[in-house]
């Protein structure tokens, strides 16, 4: 949960800023996908654009979070022995 929030929340803020900057400069009618004019309505384009920016920023955040894992977490199981799920190879006998 903590990780999910650390990925999604900063990405939301950055995605929102990117959306505003991008669509201030570019009108939705000026967009082309693979040479075809985008035929969605402006609201649809803005919405999809926002989620696209959010996803891109989230991918970056996720990568950061992934690289932030400490040596402790990578080398050993991060869960306390009693917290490990049943069937886990590292679960206590």
């Amino acid at each position, binding site marked *: 949960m903590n990780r999910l929030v650390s990925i999604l929340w900063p990405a939301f803020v950055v995605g929102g800023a990117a959306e505003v900057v991008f669509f201030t400069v570019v009108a939705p009618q000026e967009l082309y996908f693979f040479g075809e004019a985008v035929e969605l309505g402006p*609201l649809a384009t803005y919405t999809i654009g926002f989620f696209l920016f959010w996803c891109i920023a989230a991918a970056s955040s996720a990568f950061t979070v992934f690289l932030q894992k400490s040596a402790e977490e990578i080398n050993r199981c991060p869960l306390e022995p009693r917290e490990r799920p049943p069937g886990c190879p590292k679960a206590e006998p």
Partner: protein
Amino acid sequence: MSDAPVLEERSLYEVHQKIYPRAVHGWFAAWRWALVVATQLVFYGGAWLTWNGRQAVLFDIVHRRFYIFGLVFWPQDVIYLTALLVLSALSLFLFTAVAGRLWCGYACPQTVYTEIFLWVERLVEGDRNAQMRLDESDLSFNKFLRKTVKHSLWIGIALWTGITFVGYVTPIRELLGEIRSLSLGPWEMFWVGFYGFATYGNAGWMREQVCKYLCPYARFQSAMFDRDTMIITYDAGRGEPRGKKKSAGAGDCVDCGICVQVCPTGIDIRKGLQYECIGCAACVDGCDQVMDKLARPRGLIRYSTTNAMEEGWTRREMLRRLLRPRVLVYSGILLGVTLLAGAALYARVPLKVDVIRDRAAIAREVEGGSIENIYRLQIMNTTERARAFTIEVSGLPTIRLAGESTAGIAAATSRVVPVKVRIDPAQAAPGTYPIVFTIRAIGDDAVAVHEKSVFIVR
């Protein structure tokens, strides 16, 4: 960061104890409510004002035009948005330097909506103790009913907030008409739901966690503090050692714990300034009430500065430090940018022109041997009435327009006008020459724009 124990890091969001802030009355609580009412009058009410037969404040992103009362902003006016952001940032710096997190405590939507949602919660579930009892009790009809009513009210407020939010993009009267006739567009429906859900989640469930874990301002606000910033301070010299009213040698703090109970972020201000403190002054009001009952002077917890506390300054001495360089510099820049932006806005010509050279035909010879270049002028009439414009061109001998030299543009729209520009042969050797288009509103010479372009002779 990476050295932090793993378990503690994971518990950041998981082991969250619900905070039940106790209701508080007093000077600062009244101010907070006044700001709740003021900000929400502006937000909920602003969407309903009309101006010139349209919604007064409308961010018409579909037509890429922002209307704010008499002003119409186009994407080309993005500089004013930048100015607005700069002004907001500077105001935040100024307020923070003067009296800490005033924004957080009184005006931030997170605080305002939490305040509204807390009010609903108290209305339905009773005061702090009743809420705690209710949450601990087993499920009963009473509990079910109260929870249902509370969440329904919350969802109602959240939905209305979402509708108002979208109402600034799609005119709110049209939007409500669409809702009534069940013909709401899918994207509008989505954004009403999204914003409504965010309001419900943030004000109903997340509350102080937004401030503690999500807000970037909370992390860097201390950079704007100095020793003369008024912050919410516990007067330890007067309060300590804590003790019962009658015990000998005890300070003024009777350790009643009210300041902790009223705190929306659940901290103990007596431990000193903490980044969780949103500067809402609920503890000031709470403590003042207790001091009144004990017949002791108010202000055991109060707005004060580090210097004032250490030097034992009076209020007047403390306020004199308001005129310190940091505050003066922030105020100066703020005033400068405000005047600059205001002057620019006042002097703004309600006409914009983009000149686009026709790239297909660079220069061609026409009848009589004249040389012709073709341009497309995008003329934007940013007023709210139709206007006609004259087009002139200058910069070369014998330069002239061939064909139409006037253009009518409807209110708040733009139109692309193709124009042919010619010069006599032998007026210029092959090359590129700067020319100027002058577009002038007929009947108002003050509304004129000069746009540069080039004329090419081959």
